[in-house]
């Protein structure tokens, strides 16, 4: 099964092995952009090697480089949640995910103090 946009597949290697994800965009002949999305299957939106993916016979109708919300709604539309026994995130979880503020990177000042 070729990897085209919207193809549902499973990551077979790496930290997220054994989890489902959706192909969003073809980056090169070896890499594709993939997302779980994170709140649904735990796979972050990231570049992934094609070797690390195993295609499933399911396909979501999403446009290229769709946002995570669109992917979740596409999952619902294709009522795949029962088949792949995924737990749909409740609205609260979705909100909490958005509000999670990323801690800013440690800036350089620390180094100057030591001198």
């Amino acid at each position, binding site marked *: 099964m070729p990897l085209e946009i919207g193809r549902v597949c*499973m990551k*077979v*290697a*790496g*930290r997220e*092995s*054994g989890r489902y994800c959706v192909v969003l965009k073809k980056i090169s002949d070896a890499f594709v952009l993939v997302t779980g999305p994170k709140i649904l299957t735990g796979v972050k939106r990231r570049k992934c090697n094609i070797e690390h993916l*195993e295609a*499933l*016979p399911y396909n979501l109708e999403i446009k290229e480089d769709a946002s995570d919300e669109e992917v979740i709604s596409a999952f619902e539309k294709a009522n795949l949640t029962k088949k792949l026994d995924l737990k749909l995130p409740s609205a609260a979880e979705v909100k909490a995910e958005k509000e999670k503020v990323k801690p800013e990177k440690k800036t350089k000042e620390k180094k100057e103090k030591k001198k």
Partner: protein
Amino acid sequence: MMLRVKKRTPTGKVFIHLKKRKPRIARCAICKKPLHAVPRKTPSETRKLPKTKRRPERAYGGYLCSNCLKELLREGIRKRFG
């Protein structure tokens, strides 16, 4: 657990020194190849390590090697979804 090692001391006498044995390397449950990222420590030492240092963070980390896991996952998908 302790290895008895004979040592000749400067006065010419032979003493027995007790040397700690290293436990066996962790091996994959299927292909028996040595596992990566699993330290060779006694259970008491391993218990002191942080969780992420005891085994890889992958599914079946520290039990199956990555290749066996990859095959199993692919097989599972092919069998289940055809």
